[in-house]
């Protein structure tokens, strides 16, 4: 069975909805990896609320991997329907200490920032897991490796025995040991989801901000020999028209690469 990838949040930094970004989407990071009726969610930006808008059933066991705790990757937590469903269990996974994720939840669900009485008062059940190595989650094998970002951040590899998807956002793919190790680790994956926030002229002013250019992502995909490349973490204002243009330029520049700029709600299959 192929692995399916669906983006519900494709943007980096902040959501700035506008009619010129309807197709690629305006919501911050959230991707769902599916195999049949099994799934894992990666990151909890505003996209995770949009994902739960699409869920017919908000009751069950949900599995959410967190790449890091920057705001655009966790700000949707309260809008994920299952966190309010008394019969749901929300499993959160990250390589960080369980207490670190709980501290973020403590801030997020403080009554100062919303009609909350702390995350412990929410109706659903929470399970926090610290990842220390390869692990089986909902029938998938999940592994991780550090990325090159402004704060500690991890890539995830989701495999089902036949296919594998690598999620690498947020990552500044410069020629350093972190990126070389990442390339070796991701080698031969079927789908590579890669940070591609900037065009070259924008990157000049944003070196060290922890994000890649479109070219950096394509070069990494080539070295990894990924069968398909999905570019994400779009700059907040980048229009559908501009992403269309960039995608077609990249396709000409990298004819051997099967690549797309990720659009929201479309299913990409391995």
């Amino acid at each position, binding site marked *: 069975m192929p692995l399916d990838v669906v983006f519900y949040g494709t943007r980096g*930094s902040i959501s*700035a909805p506008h009619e010129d970004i309807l197709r690629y989407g305006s919501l911050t990071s959230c991707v769902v990896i599916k195999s049949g009726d099994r799934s894992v969610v990666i990151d909890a930006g*505003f996209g995770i609320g949009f994902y739960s808008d699409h869920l017919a059933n908000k009751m069950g066991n949900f599995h959410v991997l967190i790449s890091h705790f920057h*705001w655009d990757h966790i700000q949707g937590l309260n809008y994920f329907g299952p966190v309010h469903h008394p019969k749901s269990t929300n499993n959160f996974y990250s390589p960080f200490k369980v207490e670190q994720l709980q501290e*973020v939840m403590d801030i997020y669900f403080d009554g*100062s920032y*919303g009609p909350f009485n702390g995350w412990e008062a929410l109706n659903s059940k929470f399970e926090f897991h610290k990842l220390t190595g390869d692990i089986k989650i909902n029938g998938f094998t999940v592994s991780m490796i550090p990325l090159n970002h402004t704060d500690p951040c991890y890539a995830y590899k989701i495999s089902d025995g036949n296919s594998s998807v690598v999620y690498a956002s947020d990552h500044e793919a410069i020629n350093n040991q972190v990126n070389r190790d990442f390339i070796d680790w991701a080698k031969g994956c079927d789908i590579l989801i890669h940070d591609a926030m900037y065009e070259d002229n924008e990157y000049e002013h944003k070196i060290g901000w922890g994000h890649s250019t479109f070219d950096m992502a394509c070069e990494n995909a080539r070295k990894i020999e990924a069968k398909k490349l999905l570019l994400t973490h779009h700059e907040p204002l980048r229009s559908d028209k501009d992403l269309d243009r960039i995608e077609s330029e990249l396709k000409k520049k990298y004819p051997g690469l099967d690549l797309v700029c990720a659009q929201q709600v479309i299913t990409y299959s391995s």
Partner: protein
Amino acid sequence: MIFTLLGTRGSRPILTYEQVKYGGNTTAFKISIDGMNPIYVDGGTGIFREGVAITKANTRGLHAHFLITHTHWDHILAFPFFAPLFMPGTKLTIMGPRSEKYDIKSLFEHQHNKGLIPIPFEIFKERIDFKELYPNEEFMIEKATIKTVELNHQGLTLGYRIEHGGKSICIITDHAPIENNHLGVLMKGWKKDDFTAKEKIFYDTLVRFVKDADLMMHDTHFTKEGIKGKENWGHSSPEMAVDLALKANVKKVVLGHHAPEDKDNDVEIKIKSARDYLKSIGKSNSVEVVALSEGDEICL
């Protein structure tokens, strides 16, 4: 005085093909007065594009006041990405209520200091002055008079009245029905025997506050039916907005803080519901009810 709607979605940003008309950015409004720096109300995602537009048009920094209704995420989340804050010369005065636990400055600082955003708050410190506000205050921002009132929402939430040149704009969001539904932190001390009296004082104060306003933006997150059983969520219906407007002789009501699940058609149903209600009581000509798209202006 010009009222500009920059964002009017409640809870979270969203935008689908069925929501293009009324837009998906969270709460932010601009009030422009000739010869004055702008006054903004709230800093939801609606201020992000505004910030980019300002930095493109201006070489000097922005000088502006922000009136924050309350510090729930959907009303403040765009500040760390507000482009003028990255420009030397920018000077913002952010005014609003504290939360039960923290003063307003700490509430902004927390986002930066806990590793949630890779931008040190130090950059912003010299560009932002914070001032804590409470209900029933009155003060000047340049040539405009600003008044505050307590609203019925979780924590401490302020309604604002901005007056200049004989015109007035009121912002009433987020706000819920008060009957047997005491959400505000200042209401915790109310005693059961006094509930009816306290509720009356609260509502009468609100009516006096919006009295004769030319424009009142009012929370209408819910429909008349949708609010039933969800009064304690902290939001209003179009009928509540109309009732308040009628009691206070408000001329124009702008519906807002639309629920993230509201399609354009749902917003139009709310407008119709408010107008039908006015018609049913023979008051169609007493209050004008509208909803605005992002970027729409009302000139007073």
